[in-house]
């Protein structure tokens, strides 16, 4: 590995880490003001313009608040549980491509930390580790409400992981790959022409059922409403993080927001073309390239690809917030029945139909 490659690697890791850490305060702000917008209230609007500094105040409060642990907890597991929740959340992003490739001094770099052979399987396997943070927290808290919360979360995660995996099998069959980089670049092709508008070969147009299944199960995997049974304030007080306060509680919140970011990035990459330019961006790119501001014209394209990716991810994160403040919570048996009796058979059917269509040469 040359020094240039090493530097680029560190730059890429830096971009991803900084981006993920930045989502947390932004989502804190968006979730509060967004919920207020939907419920026709004002929300926290006192700190700074539009209440933008509220997140900073929250962070300062979390850091300086006394870090107390109740006497009845299992100290070791109580302490490591937030870390177990937050570290896998960061790790998952390693295989997601956030821009195309750039040629620099003869070497081509992919804007992706690791282009693993197993691609999306790595995402699933690391994401499935996140449930241990919740289980550990609930168990170590030595509290019935917490334990119930973590029991619910383990049952829910296992059930919906099946659908999550199955919903992508069709997509992998169409694109003939499990590598996220391959899937993202394959979506740049044109599916068909609608008049003069080119419809891109995005996953959502090829696999609409797979997309819906993936979207629903991702909500269950990230423990967001309408599937936030592990927290369920009205029944379990706060579920698995009931006994947590100050920075430790903040870490659980961080894990949730970062999981949301990763889930949105996966939706964008698998079904909405990933880093492929948004429709009107290709015109902008050629205009900016004509200005000749940068020595390397590829750089402009990469920047706009990154911007397209960020816009796609941000819209899906807004969708998460939107759903949270729109839909009521499911009952637990409804959740289980829905997962096993509706989503799972639909996922199997989707694989079958996709296989048939590929066999017939339609896809």
């Amino acid at each position, binding site marked *: 590995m040359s020094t240039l490659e090493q530097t680029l690697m560190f730059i890429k890791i830096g971009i991803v880490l900084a981006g993920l850490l930045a989502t947390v305060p932004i989502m804190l702000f968006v979730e509060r003001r967004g919920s207020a917008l939907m419920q026709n209230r004002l929300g926290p609007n006192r700190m700074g313009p539009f209440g933008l500094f509220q997140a900073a105040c929250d962070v300062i409060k979390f850091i300086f608040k006394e870090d107390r642990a109740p006497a009845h907890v299992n100290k070791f*597991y109580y302490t490591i549980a937030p870390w177990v929740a937050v570290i896998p959340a960061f790790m998952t992003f390693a295989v997601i491509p956030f821009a195309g490739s750039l040629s620099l001094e003869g070497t081509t770099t992919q804007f992706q930390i690791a282009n693993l052979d*197993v691609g999306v*399987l790595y995402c699933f396997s690391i994401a*499935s580790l996140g449930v241990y943070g919740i289980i550990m927290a609930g168990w170590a808290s030595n509290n019935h409400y917490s334990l119930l919360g*973590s*029991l619910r979360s383990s049952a829910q995660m296992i059930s919906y*992981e099946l659908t999550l995996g199955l919903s992508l099998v069709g997509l992998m069959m169409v694109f003939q790959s499990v590598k996220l980089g391959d899937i993202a670049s394959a979506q740049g092709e044109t599916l068909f022409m609608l008049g003069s508008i080119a419809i891109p070969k995005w996953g959502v147009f090829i696999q609409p059922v797979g997309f819906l299944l993936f979207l629903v199960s991702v909500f269950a995997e990230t423990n967001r409403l309408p599937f936030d049974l592990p927290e369920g304030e009205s029944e379990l007080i706060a579920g698995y993080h009931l006994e947590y306060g100050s920075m430790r509680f903040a870490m659980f919140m961080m894990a949730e927001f970062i999981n949301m970011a990763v889930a949105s990035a996966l939706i964008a990459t698998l079904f909405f073309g990933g880093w492929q330019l948004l429709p009107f961006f290709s015109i902008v790119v050629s205009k900016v390239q004509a200005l000749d501001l940068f020595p390397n014209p590829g750089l402009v394209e990469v920047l706009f690809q990154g911007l397209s990716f960020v816009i796609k991810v941000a819209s899906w994160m807004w969708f998460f917030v939107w759903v949270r403040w729109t839909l009521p919570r499911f009952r637990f048996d409804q959740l289980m029945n829905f997962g096993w009796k509706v989503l799972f058979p639909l996922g199997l059917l989707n694989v079958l139909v996709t296989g048939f269509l590929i066999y017939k040469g339609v896809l």
Partner: protein
Amino acid sequence: MIDYPFLAFVAFSTIAILGSLMVIFKKNPVASAFALVAVFFAFAGLYALMSAHLVAALQILVYTGAIMVLFVFVIMLLNQDRPVEDFKSSSGTFKVISGVAVSFLVFLFVKVAFLARGIVPAGDWTVEKMEEQGGNVKSIANALFSDHILQFELTSFLLLGAIVATIAIAKRKGSSGRTAP
């Protein structure tokens, strides 16, 4: 230049050995289960170091992500607070059996060490050959669905049989079909 793969190897093997010891010596079953999760994770890391990414991903996905979650789930439902009884006061038979088992294991280790004597030669499935065939996923899928299709399908039938049997046993005891989640 730091030898990162070697450092990773040392770290993962240490976690695997310490974790395995913790699985045995922890009094609390849930703590043992968590230690076993760490062991599985370390194994996955070792597989990844050998460029077997698919095996590593499946190791985490299946063992850590699904089976161990179920284990922990069942342990937490069955006995939350009761630690298992201490084996110090157990019978002489137990001591004899464990003695025999330990000596057999030691014998096995020594035998393998003598057989290997240094570096074990690489088999048919080298890293280069896997690359040639289009990576981990493709080469394993090709092997599974062509040469070993019969064994693969038989295994899936065995698992299906196990699922049906479990449901049959569970149904016989409970009078009503509805069970609490």
